[in-house]
């Protein structure tokens, strides 16, 4: 296993190496040392490598990830795994705002809490949060699934499209056009599968399903309460 020490190389050198000089078959797992909250670590990866970041990371860690399996052994700043396309990004600690924003595919796991707007504008990725999520999570989320093992702050799922949210704890208020729906067998199976992938163990029957009421799909000025 190779290691890269961010106390010795710059972020630019680090990312350049991962983009251009990494042979994942020869080096399938890399330890990343001394991240010290640096921004933009491991962005734009497109290689099936396992990256273990030993410490806290700043904004946009693992942004636009493809294929790679990135684990941050610490907390992360804004927009972890934004626009993720595939692969897995795991945060062992807490995540700041906009975790998994606009993600197209792959899976984002936050073992602690995720702050506001978690899953904003998501477009097909899956996000599993072990703790709570902040306000306006899954705002305008288009596709994919957000699983919250803790509580959700107000404005959950505001202006949802086709993404689905599962919350185990308390929902402190839904956003415009979001509604609770009955859990079907397919939902239980989906949550079970996602929790298993995330390595979390919760009773799936305790989750509630939130999805779009689809009242905003066509502009209706007489539905003033929606706007």
């Amino acid at each position, binding site marked *: 296993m190779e290691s890269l020490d961010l106390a010795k190389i710059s972020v630019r050198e680090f990312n350049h190496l991962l983009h251009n000089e990494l042979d994942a078959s020869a080096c399938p797992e890399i330890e990343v040392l001394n991240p010290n909250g640096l921004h*933009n670590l491991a962005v734009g990866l497109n290689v099936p490598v396992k990256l273990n970041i030993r410490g806290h990371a700043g904004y946009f860690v693992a942004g*636009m990830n493809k294929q790679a399996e990135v684990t941050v052994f610490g907390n992360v700043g804004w927009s972890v795994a934004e626009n993720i396309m595939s692969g897995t990004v795991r945060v062992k600690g807490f995540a700041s705002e906009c975790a998994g924003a606009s993600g197209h595919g792959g899976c984002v796991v936050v073992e602690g809490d995720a702050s506001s707007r978690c899953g904003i504008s998501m477009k097909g990725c899956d996000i599993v949060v072990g703790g709570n999520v902040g306000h306006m999570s899954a705002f305008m989320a288009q596709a994919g699934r957000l699983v919250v093992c803790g509580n959700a702050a107000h404005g959950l799922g505001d*202006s949802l499209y086709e993404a689905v949210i599962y919350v185990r704890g308390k929902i402190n208020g839904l956003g415009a056009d979001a509604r609770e729906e009955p859990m079907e067998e397919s939902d239980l199976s989906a949550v079970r599968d996602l929790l298993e992938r995330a390595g979390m163990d919760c009773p799936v029957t305790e989750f509630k399903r939130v999805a779009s009421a689809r009242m905003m799909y066509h*502009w209706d*000025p007489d539905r003033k309460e929606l706007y």
Partner: protein
Amino acid sequence: MNQGIDREENYSFSSSVLSYIDRAAERGVYDIRGLGAKRQIPTFDDLVFLTASMSRYPLEGYREKCATKTVLGSLRAKKPIELEIPITIAGMSFGSLSANVKEALGRAAREMGTSTTTGDGGMTPEERESSKTLIYQCLPSRYGFNPDDLLKADAIEIVVGQGAKPGGGGMLLGLKISERVAAMRKLPEGIDQRSACRHPDWTGPDDLAIKILELREITDWQIPIYIKIGATRVRDDVKLAVKSGADVVVVDGMQGGTAATQQVFIENTGIPTLPAVRLAVEALEEMDMLGKVQLIVSGGIRTGADVAKALALGADAVSLGQSVLMALGCNRPFYVDGDRQVDVSGEYEALGTAAGHCHHCQSGLCPVGVTTQLPELEKRMQPEWGARRLKNYLQTLNMELTTIARACGKSNVHHLEREDLVALTVEAAAMAKLPLAGTDWIPGVKQG
């Protein structure tokens, strides 16, 4: 006398205002439309050039060279944008425009050695293939935004706002959300689709600075990054854009177009392009970044004279949207099918308008096949035909630009300067901070 006032139009409640009130009372919803502001405002038409005479020496218009080469984004990128002309094509989405139109834009731009720009909805293979130089927009919606296309781009344009609707998002109505558009945007087909007004992963300029570094890291610092703003608080916004790390700032004045936005936005927000250019240049000067960070100006640029005036005021290039669509047939009373001109007056009438007045891009029912996703309408604008007309139009603008530059004694269009211009109206003089023609008076500037 009484008879006169009995028939006199009420200035506050004109026929246009009465019509607006009637529609609002009938329907209970604001109007959404396309294109840009129609109201009369000070424009580049209110400026004229002081070409050469005894005190200046002109270049021969048909013999002496006048350079138009334009380099954008040279501050940090390893591969700055190099264009043959300072006239670029603005970002317009596949969704608002048909795939045929996007292809025509790319072909014409390639022939003229300039750039085209994607739009909301992502990059289509047709436009990437047809465009030699393609700017990839990063918009708040992030529809279709992905790292594969990012790595195919020649530059990135982060769209913070646009002149037609600064501070507002967008709305693409259901008729335009075809199967292909829906798939690219990951949305259900046929729904009214909202484009957000804020980016999902950053909020203020401090975050944007980090976001820009992320994009630079992903693209290995190869390509320039533009920031596009709608013209409101231009001086502050340009400074913040530069501070955030922009290589190029695009300022879009209130005449800038849109595919679909509330009428109240289009006519009542932002400032005209004329003062916006001046404010942007002053901001760059105050930061000692003029010439280091390039300035592109857009919003109501129609002629070679407009281009020349924008450059003389300090812009490095201009960007065209609506006028490009008009070169492709927008607002013509007919479309061309082989050798035939097919009249579409009835279709304009069905939209409640007429050729020359249409702004119904939002409807998806464009009679000349420019702003549509319906196959039977789209085929009315064939890429070969459109590319030829657009190439001619851009060529004309460039010839007009160099004609004026030579007459001002410049061997390079980028040598045009403020000293070459005066204003014809007090308003334009104040907005552009140029002397009123025949005087030394610049309104708002203290004399001596």
